């Protein structure tokens, strides 16, 4: 009996350990694969042509700057929408809404998160883009802004559910302490609950941004995909082409092992590195925040 229990224990521990390590293994393998397929770009294409502003791969123009700026503009716009809306909704659901309201809102937000992005893309093409063109008097409604609005909508549920969990796990004693000192509800939320849940809220924001920058189908349908360098203020109101849409639109076509193929993987590498940097920044901020909290407590 004793022996079989320890045996079982051993196997279960190993299984859990393997699944834990497999996550690391998969990330490493994916990165290795990206490097193997993407790095030949650096020998096949000059740096100057890679940093050019013209993307037209079938004639060997491989300037990736328009794609990078395009992704950044759309993602930034989406973050500006998703972060205030997402955190606001999370605060309302966790701190203000009465219990019955919370029971309705939470599943609804999660339902929104489950909407297929292609459906949102259709809404964008048929409703949002024509509306924006007329409303803002733009040449075309297929712009970075259209993409940002839809991506914001896609990122909001992610931000809400993670931030709401973080706010929920703040001990009740913190709020009661603040109320006991005579703080209003707003002061409690702004000065006590949100700072206490800071690391979770920040994780929510980062996950939301990650969701937005990696989203493909919606942006491909509504941003117009014109590879224009997006560094002017008006770029938000003109068509852009994102890295994800480029990979999705062109990967099916390229000959395996061609320069174009390698450049597409190189773009994938850039995307991977960008999300890695975002994650590292986020976790270092969270780490520092923790240390300060510990200092105060000690």
């Amino acid at each position, binding site marked *: 009996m004793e022996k079989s229990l320890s045996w079982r224990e051993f196997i279960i521990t190993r299984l859990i350990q393997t699944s834990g390590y497999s996550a690391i293994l998969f990330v490493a393998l994916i990165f290795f694969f990206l490097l193997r397929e993407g790095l030949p770009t650096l020998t096949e294409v000059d740096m100057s042509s890679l940093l050019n*502003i*013209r993307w*037209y*791969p*079938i*004639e060997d*123009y491989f300037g990736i700057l*328009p794609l990078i700026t395009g992704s950044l503009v759309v993602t930034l716009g989406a973050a500006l929408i998703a972060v205030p809306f997402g955190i606001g909704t999370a605060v309302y659901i966790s701190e203000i809404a009465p219990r019955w309201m919370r*029971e309705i809102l939470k*599943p609804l937000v999660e339902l929104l998160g489950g909407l297929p992005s292609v459906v949102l893309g259709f809404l964008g*093409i*048929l409703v949002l*883009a*024509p509306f924006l*063109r007329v409303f803002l008097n733009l*040449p*075309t*409604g*297929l712009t970075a802004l259209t993409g940002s609005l839809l991506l914001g909508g896609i990122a909001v549920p992610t931000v809400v559910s993670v931030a709401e969990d973080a706010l929920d796990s703040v001990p009740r004693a913190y709020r009661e302490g603040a109320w006991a000192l005579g703080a209003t509800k707003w002061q409690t939320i702004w000065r006590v609950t949100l700072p206490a849940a800071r690391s979770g809220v920040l994780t929510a924001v980062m996950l939301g941004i990650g969701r937005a920058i990696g989203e493909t189908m919606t942006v*491909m*349908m509504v941003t*117009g*995909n*014109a*590879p*224009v360098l997006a560094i002017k203020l008006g770029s938000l109101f*003109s*068509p852009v*082409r994102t890295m994800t849409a480029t990979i999705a*639109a*062109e990967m*099916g*076509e*390229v*000959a*395996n092992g061609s320069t174009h193929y390698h450049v597409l993987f190189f773009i994938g590498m850039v995307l991977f590195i960008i999300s890695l940097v975002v994650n590292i920044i986020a976790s270092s901020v969270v780490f520092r925040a923790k240390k300060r909290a510990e200092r105060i407590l000690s």
Partner: protein
Amino acid sequence: MKRLHSFLLLTSFLFTFFLLTSCGSSNSSSASDSPAKYIENKGSDTIVNLALAWAEKYQSDHSDVRISVTGGGSGTGIAALVNGTVDLANASRKIKDEEVAEAQSNGVEPVEHIIARDAIAVIVNPNNPVSELTLQQISDIYSGKYTNWTEVGGEDRPIVRLSRETNSGTHVYFLETVLRLGSKDDKTLFSMDTLLLPSSEGIISEVRDNPNAIGYDGLGYVPDDLKTIAIANEAGSAYVLPSIETVNDKSYAIARDLYMYTNGGPTGIVKEYLDWILSDEAQLIVAELGFVPVLK
């Protein structure tokens, strides 16, 4: 809350049930036919509707044959032929030299068959007063030389250029025939702010909605509620609208052949299918779908 959950559960259960039953019925019907011969057919999005119509008709006459048709673009189809995953690759452009080289290094010998002809229609919103353009003017619009409709006799509106993605055979054909006017040394490119849309449907819905837009698409895909531009080969010559007659007498400038490629000369069931495609019966379907039949 509980009620909401059980409601969701019930609807999802019903949904799955319907899916399962509908799948089941279609499976059983195909199983009873016991199809013996398969043809895999893949490639150009321009041809996909035509290929589907052919496949449907052919399968209803030959119950022992099953033809699966998918789109994805000319390059995708040819790549699949090179990799040996399809029997017939549809292409709206000729196979490129490097694709032939890649095929041969894979032991595949692509053989070309002209199966229909297609005209590219240049389309604008019905509210746009412009209805005639020369090839040179269209080239200048797409290369970015003209940016306002007044420059080609229209209203004071910015021009929004729409194009298919670069993996589309239609895109490459339009670049070579219209932007570069057929000249091999011409290095004109699409203006950088040309919108590259991933589907024909994307172009059509944007042109339908946006009076600033100009787009192009296969004649078979242009719905009646959009305005098709009459095109003159050069300034002073007659403006011609695309139609079966004007494509066949070569007076409409932007027309091309559509191809299917096989690995080596076609044999067996694939040969029978290709022969049928060139028959009068199949070419009648070509005309019905707005393409141009191959002249014998």
